[in-house]
């Protein structure tokens, strides 16, 4: 046996430093994407104008107006929604022991779509001709509120189930499949009896679009995300322990059941908030954690935070593509993430050595 007495901690510190460098790269990419998002748009303005508007907080005219009223909320929404979906995906994959799990697995998106369809079809009289006008006409929070409520029904059902009986990770996933199917059927039933305009409004809602969120919606998303993220980070070691299985984690003093339930509750809450305000955005919760895993393996001290950063970058970059691909037409970002996500994800699956 080689004698490496004393230098184990040093090599460990070096390995840790390389993980920090990975994080710095992702943060840098995120910064560039945010800068691009501030600069790009139909309104022509140079970096100087944007910078001046940024530091002067002047939103009255020209570049300042465009920046503070259009590009800033859009950029922040993309960044925070991406961060929320990325980190929630990372921890969900851990507690459900399934590399393909995201909060959507347990029925969040279908629940939210059900709530939104309900609000659009039953809570509003349609006098306007075009779906987007009818959509814009509604009270801004009524759809979001119903979508949030729908997502919470899914969450509550799953959590009640896991508390009621000793349901393990696989049981949670199967229950999610059942819930998805149930809410899907209910949504289709409502849509079957809806008018054309109601139907197109409901469909329009499901296209995830970060342009939907204003500062008010953002405040809700940021608050929920911050609370959940603080919990996820504080439980980093517990997630690392759980990677070794429930019994090892319990032997190390982790309250496995409480960790699983609290994590699912918080991951569902952030996803519900995101989905309610910007619509369904798929794949970010899968792409971000799995890309990060290539660099930091399964270490949740880095994985959760980096998934948030990379999720933010992914959604920002996707939104830039959505804004520029068919300019001046702006595509819903959900379409871009699904388009880019599927092949990228297949690539990670084929290249990856994790035996997923």
């Amino acid at each position, binding site marked *: *046996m*080689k*004698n*490496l*007495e004393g230098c*184990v*901690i040093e*090599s*460990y510190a070096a*390995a840790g430093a390389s993980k920090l460098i990975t994080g710095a790269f992702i943060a840098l990419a995120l910064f560039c994407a945010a800068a691009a998002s501030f600069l790009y748009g139909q309104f022509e303005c140079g970096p100087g104008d944007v910078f001046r508007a940024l530091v002067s907080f002047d939103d009255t005219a020209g570049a300042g107006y465009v920046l503070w009223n259009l590009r800033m909320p859009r950029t922040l929404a993309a960044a925070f929604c991406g961060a929320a979906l990325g980190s929630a995906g990372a921890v969900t994959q851990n507690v459900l022991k399934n590399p393909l799990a995201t909060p959507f697995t347990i029925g969040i998106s279908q629940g939210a779509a059900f709530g939104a369809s309900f609000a659009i079809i039953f809570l509003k009289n349609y006098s306007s001709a075009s779906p987007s006008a009818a959509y814009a006409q509604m009270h801004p929070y009524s759809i979001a509120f119903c979508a949030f409520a729908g997502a919470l029904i899914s969450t509550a059902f799953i959590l009640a189930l896991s508390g009621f009986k000793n349901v393990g990770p696989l049981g949670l996933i199967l229950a999610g499949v059942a819930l998805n199917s149930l809410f899907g059927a209910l949504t289709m039933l409502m849509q079957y009896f809806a008018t054309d305009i109601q139907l197109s409004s409901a469909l329009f809602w499901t296209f995830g679009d970060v342009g939907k969120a204003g500062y008010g919606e953002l405040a809700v998303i940021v608050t929920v995300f911050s609370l959940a993220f603080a919990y996820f*980070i*504080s439980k*980093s*070691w*517990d997630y*690392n*322990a759980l*990677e*070794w*299985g429930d*019994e*090892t984690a*319990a*032997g*190390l*003093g*982790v309250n496995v059941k409480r960790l699983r339930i609290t994590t699912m509750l918080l991951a569902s809450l952030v996803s519900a908030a995101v989905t309610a305000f910007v619509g369904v955005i798929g794949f970010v919760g899968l792409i971000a954690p799995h890309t990060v*895993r290539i660099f930091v*393996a*399964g*270490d949740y*001290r880095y994985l959760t935070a980096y998934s948030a950063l990379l999720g933010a970058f992914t959604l920002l970059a996707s939104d830039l593509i959505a804004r520029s691909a068919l300019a001046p037409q702006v595509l819903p970002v959900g379409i871009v993430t699904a388009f880019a996500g599927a092949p990228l994800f297949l690539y990670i699956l084929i290249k990856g050595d*994790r035996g997923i």
Partner: protein
Amino acid sequence: MLVFEGLFFRYSRRDVLENITFSAQPGKLCALVGPNGCGKSTLLKCAAGVLAPHAGAIEYNDPASGVKCRPHAEGFTAYMPQAQAPPPCSVFDAVLLGRRRHMNFRARKKDLEKTEEAIHLACISDIAMKRCDNLSGGELQKVILARSLAQEPKVLLLDEPTNHLDLKNQVEMMKLIKNITEKLNIITIAAIHDMNLAVKYAAKFVMIKNGKIFADSNISAVTKENIDSLYSVDSKIYDIDGGKIVVIN
């Protein structure tokens, strides 16, 4: 001393452990033997706090310091479950995980030092930077033993530590466990299937049959009658070089 007092456990109406009462001393490797499904793993899980017994008590007491407590609640136990697929983390991180109770987010200097100490104790410093999912079965078991040591346990609970290992690794692992038990003067209870490994390295034998204590003694418990009745086999026991060898006909 670790005392099991009238321990009962049942999985949905089936009694798995019935009135288990025995004690284990520090510095002496205690082997838990018995056929598959007799309740060895369940007993270890109860001691580790993974399962909660339905009746009875597990108490740690140290006459020297006067400490009396439930060992798991105080973080005195380290539990090594049966071998399973490892996640893709580094060996150092896997061992550092044993310091979980002492860390918030950042590992402090003391945690890193204890981790390094455990790595040296388990003789795995040459693989400390490898990834756990690239290790052989023998290496992985040593990593998990090192993690248990990083917990600074007073009670070490091992569930079939030599399972899936080749002959050389079985012997190395058992030697390591025996040495650690004696050197650190801790209470070690190991579920072991191989009677000859148990005979060679253990100082105390607790035999379990159908969830009840069948025999509880030192090497004198290893007799033809006990082995035959415990496993429903026809065995012979030879004395070779002052030790016993169990042979099954």
